């Protein structure tokens, strides 16, 4: 089993090197100051490389990762949130929020019916407080809410 920290270190190392490489590719224009736009990113990349290198060589004890079921729950939540972000404008705030909040509430332990009620409650509650009372503009769907 590969330690998580070794993966973290390796990813950080690659990211750091890529960042330094990316910095050397920055095209400079006519205006040039003493240091230029490349040096500071190169310093940052080097710090990342050094820190990641240390973590790669001397990893900490393994963190408590969730079991497969937990990972699936989190992936599910990510899908719900991405779907919500994409649906917000075409569908409108109230409906998309009610659906997303219901799903999240259900997965956090509500009964299916309880989840739906909770989702509608959150959606309508936010709509009333933030839109009707405070006048914040929320995403308007084809139905106007």
């Amino acid at each position: 089993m590969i330690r998580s920290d070794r993966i973290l270190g390796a990813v950080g190392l690659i990211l750091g090197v890529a960042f330094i490489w990316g910095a050397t590719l920055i095209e400079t224009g006519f205006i040039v100051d003493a240091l230029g736009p490349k040096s500071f990113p190169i310093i940052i990349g080097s710090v990342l490389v050094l820190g990641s290198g240390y973590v790669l060589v001397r990893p900490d004890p393994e963190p408590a990762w969730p079991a497969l079921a937990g990972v699936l729950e989190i992936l599910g939540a990510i899908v719900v949130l991405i779907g919500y972000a994409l649906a917000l404008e075409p569908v409108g705030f109230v409906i998309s929020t009610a659906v997303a909040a219901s799903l999240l509430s259900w997965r956090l332990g509500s009964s299916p019916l309880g989840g739906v009620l909770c989702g509608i409650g959150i959606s309508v509650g936010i709509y009333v407080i933030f839109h009707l009372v405070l006048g914040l503009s929320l995403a308007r769907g084809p139905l106007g809410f």
Partner: protein
Amino acid sequence: MELLDSLAQGFAVALTLENLGLALLGCFLGTIIGALPGLGPSNGVAILIPLAFTLGLPATPALILLTSVYYGCMYGGRISSILLNIPGDEPALMTTLDGYPLAKQGRAGEALALSGLASFVGSFFATIGVALFAPLLVKVALLFGPAEYFALFTLAFATLGGVSSKNQAKSAMAAALGLGIAMIGIDGSTGVYRFTFGNIHLLDGIDFLVAIVGLFAISEVFLFMEHKGAESAIGTRLDRITIPLATLKRTLGAMARGTGIGFIAGVLPGAGASLGSFVAYTIEKRTSDRQGTFGKGDVRGLAAPEAGNNASAGGALIPMLSLGVPGSGTTAVLLAMLLTLNITPGPLLFQRNPDVVWGLIAALFIANVMLLLMNIPLVGLFARVLQVPARILMPAVAMVSFVGIYGISGSTFELLLMIAFGVGGYVLRKLDVPLVPVILGILLGNQMEDNLRRALSISNGDWGILWGSPLAIGLWSFAVVGFVAPMIVGRMLRPRVPAAETADPD
């Protein structure tokens, strides 16, 4: 005299109906946010910032609202510590040690009242400290040139990393990640594109509010998905909420010491409220624990850390206001708000916008009185809020985060970016990579680079200018000590966070 004049001006600003209302709202929300396990000052304030903007609040009212939330959280954190043995936020961790045993002995009401009073003492004197010392630090700040500022920023990262993580290498990684993200977009001094990958959304750089809400609020939702079912319920019944005179006498010393220690811990860049309450408890235990009663329900062990965490919350505002370098996670979030409002903290803030500074300080005095009233007679109300289960709370948190970010950006791209930050924040938290240096890097990256480039322009490219003045040398040495010392004495100084990720960096 000058001080009193300024304060009087401040009170004139703060005592309008609108500002009083915002302070009251902030105190109320803050106490709730602090009391709810899983929501603390930094994610609470992070969620509210975009909302404050979209509501179009000007600088002073917005700052009053959010700092009232910040102070309120410091009060609220103790409620769940005492009643449920779950710290409402990280600084309230030490409050569980003697607070929960007191509740189990049937003295929950007394413990809540006493800790409320200790919170008041801590933040009241710390606010006086802000009024006294922030203008003094501003005078020092006038001596700072670009080289000194660069050294100061490095110092902030070094000391912040030292206390926020067990592993300095991971703090360094976190800082580099944040700074790297700040580099995305158009370079301010030469106008060239950096790391934009041809994406038009990235030309302006990444909005730090998107990053903050993602890292703090959305990642919290994922953590709850992982350990769901941790429902809260209050078993203890609240008795009379009063403090016997004898208890008050016994704890005065503890409160005074806690306040002093907490304040100093708050002013030091990077230390923050968790360290303040931790050191306050440890020192109180060393001075007063003669019969071995600490940890079993000693009132002094409750008063000291509560005074300590509130005092450091106030203290942390000093470097944020006068130097623009935040002393803790939440002040970093508050700094984000000031920067978005185009207010740059530092000496110029005190000269150009004295109304903002003194209005804020006056509002904090007012908020403190409100909080004392809310947190002693009305504490039962907040205790009931703790019964809101995570399955309702967390979806609401996620949805409100979306509302806020959509409100400031109106763009789906920013929402997706926020989710990405949420996932990244979750993974980093699991791997014990601290998030505060990431935030600080995103916030300060461009200023840090500007100062470095300005310094080198002055010296025509000679790096020696960075350590060319005694002040700069002092800052660099402090930075080195701040980074290295925790590796040696780290285990003694750092608050021990229990296995559950209550990783809210105050």
